[in-house]
């Protein structure tokens, strides 16, 4: 199922991810990190289902642990010494905690990027950046068209060559390399040859005439504006919290950060709302749809 946030205007999608990823990178407060990671995790599950769960558990969690354990081996700042390593270097609590925080930051950014990939499809990206450089956007679109064709043709040629007894899996290394290079060389000829027809087709449809316009299938709506307003308000609120020192974090020399006093908690909730916005939209729309179905 397509999630509701994906149906918003590409600009909204892009701004959202850009800001959330920047926040995840620079707001190293442990509570903020946890919120960001949890939200990204949940949203990637929503978008990619089982595949995301598999990736997150098998790749991200081990990665997180390794990163967290590596930092204290190279970084010896901090005042709380846990023990001395065999080389005589001190292993500090602060370094362990910072390693963990940095790893969490890293992992949540990866997780956000996986969500970004699912939401920002190539045509949305093209739409956004095509306005800046129209010629480049067409080239990009043509590349996206060309790559799958090229891959498919390699497959066809490899099969045909295998039927001539020239496959890539038998014979000695020299022969295999020779066969591989031969296929690549003919692919270049093929690509050049076939691009002539494409060029003809472009020319015959008036490509190159002055005054080319760019068409898109995206139109901004009211909900896009509302989303942006809400989103900007939340972002400014959170930044203000950090700027005024209401929320802060310090890892070295000794760990210190705002805890769960009522005022900072308001900011935590604000950040939680920001990170969960796509999921909230999705759930609200689903709920609305169910109500709509039950009424009619």
């Amino acid at each position: 199922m397509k999630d509701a946030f994906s149906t918003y205007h590409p600009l909204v999608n892009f701004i959202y991810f850009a800001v959330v990823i920047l926040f995840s990178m620079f707001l190293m407060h442990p509570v903020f990190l946890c919120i960001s990671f949890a939200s990204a995790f949940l949203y990637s599950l929503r978008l990619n289902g089982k595949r995301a769960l598999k990736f997150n558990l098998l790749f991200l969690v081990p990665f997180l642990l390794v990163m967290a354990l590596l930092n204290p081996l190279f970084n010896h700042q901090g005042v709380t010494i846990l023990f001395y390593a065999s080389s005589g270097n001190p292993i500090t609590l602060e370094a362990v905690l910072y390693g963990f925080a940095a790893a969490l930051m890293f992992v949540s950014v990866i997780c956000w990027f996986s969500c970004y990939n699912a939401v920002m499809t190539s045509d949305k990206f093209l739409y956004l950046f095509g306005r800046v450089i129209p010629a480049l956007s067409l080239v990009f679109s043509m590349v996206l068209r060309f790559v799958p064709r090229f891959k498919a043709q390699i497959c066809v040629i490899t099969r045909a060559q295998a039927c001539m007894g020239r496959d890539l899996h038998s014979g000695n290394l020299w022969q295999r390399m020779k066969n591989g290079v031969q296929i690549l060389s003919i692919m270049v000829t093929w690509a050049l040859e076939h691009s002539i027809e494409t060029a003809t087709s472009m020319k015959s449809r008036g490509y190159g005439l002055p005054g080319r316009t760019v068409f898109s299938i995206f139109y901004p709506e009211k909900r896009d504006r509302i989303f942006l307003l809400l989103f900007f308000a939340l972002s400014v609120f959170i930044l203000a919290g950090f700027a005024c020192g209401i929320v802060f974090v310090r890892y070295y020399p000794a760990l210190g950060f705002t805890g769960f006093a009522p005022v900072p908690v308001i900011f935590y909730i604000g950040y939680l709302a920001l990170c969960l916005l796509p999921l909230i939209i999705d759930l609200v729309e689903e709920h609305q749809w169910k109500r709509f179905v039950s009424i009619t």
Partner: protein
Amino acid sequence: METFRIDNLSFTYPLAIRPALAGIDLAVEQGEFLLLCGFSGCGKSTLLRHLKTALAPHGQKSGQIDFNGVDLQEVGLREQSQKIGFVVQSPEEQIVTDKVWHELAFGLESLGYDQQTIRLRVAEMASFFGIQNWFHEDVATLSGGQKQLLNLASIMAMQPEVLILDEPTGQLDPIAALDFLQTVKRINRELGVTVILSEQRLEEVFPLADRVVVMDRGKMIAEGLPLEVGNQLKKQEHEMFYALPSPMQIHAAVVGDLPCPVTVREGRRWLDQICGPYTEAGEPVAATSQNLSRQEEVVTLKEVYFKYEKEQPDVIKGLNLTVRQGEFLAVVGGNGTGKSTALMLMSGLLKPYRGKVLLNGKAVASIPGKERFWQNLGVLPQDPQALFVKKTVMLDLLEVLSDQKLSEYEKELKINEVATLTEITSLLAMHPYDLSGGEQQRAALAKILLLDPRILLLDEPTKGMDARFKRIFAAILQNLQSGGVTIVLVSHDVEFCARYAERCALFFDGSAISVGEAKEFFCGNSFYTTAANRMARHRFPQAVTTEDVIKACNTTRP
């Protein structure tokens, strides 16, 4: 009013000896559906490309072309891009962008229309062509037929006055081709767009055309209403006659003065008139699969199952098929029924996940590549271009023999022998990509033949071939067969299979549901059979080819 008026147009390609077009005089009326036919290389494409300046080839040109009463040279590129739509053969190469909606808008973007206009035009065309269901898809996920429809739709979005189509169905299967041609007819009938179409397969398109022009060697040799053209060609005893729809060929061969039938329906009526009152309904012969167990089995498929990916449905389901030594087996069936996959299973390129594929009693995939494809299996892929790897045909053929311990002289001798057999001796110095479709097919076959195959597996070899070359190709195959080569051919071309194959298998839903001797096989089918059989089956149920029907007509006439 005339859309196009061509006056004494001649054209010669650079370095060519004889002209590609010689003194063409032709007027195309507004709203007309003009069919242009002729063998490959007769100058059809050259003529069509002259009708749009941006596509016109370079060379020596004389004569004049007027578009809407104005010299085409004077008509601006913008006006030409918009008013003259052009669709060519290959569905793949005309598509520029990666999304369906973007492709539809491409021409309009070039012409500089604003967002709102493009939106409306694209929406209109998507609805007219029934594209709305795959409007957001990636182009790569479409079938060949859908791609060609998309090409047509993206031209039509520009609202052209005239639509020029250069063998647009050459790469499509028969069902998709028919669908495409019907859409073209609809555009012509409902929108009044002038259509100029060149085509190789005439059976379906002949009844749609208002006027037919036949070309040969750069000249127009016949012109007129569809039913007149047959007689003109017959009088000239021209080879193009054999490319005409079966009812017309039959009509011309049977003495009588009734008007010429063009469609199967008219053919049936004509046959009833000519053969007198309807006496008895011929019993359709049921296809009995006789066991020709005299010959040895060379390829055996036993309850084979195959699918490309785990989650996907089976492509081949419980397929049983045997190929016997020295026979010519044709595999027919609709698109996506697993014909080509079955061929790849036979060649061992794919392995079944259940069941067995045996080559001379051994599991085919376990035989090492060298042994499997040297003096054993020869596979001609659907796209002959996939076989070429060198700069010239000669080098390509030498490359095949590079592993063999033969002297230069022996190699040359062998290549000459094969080149003579496939009639490519004059093409040896050319780049394989510069050959025409039929020539590529022959050069590819030559490459395969150098491996001295005992079993030939051919995937859609007659795709895009003209009627003349099909006969040459069939002769090559028969020649090979008489030398003891077993032939398995997968094809959509029912007419070709009916004429030349010995045994036929009909594929449906991943398995061969009926196998029989060609004649009985086609007599037993009522849809999947030749046009001649469909036309005459109520009279002569045994007649499959046009010759059969002509013979039956001439013997039973009162």
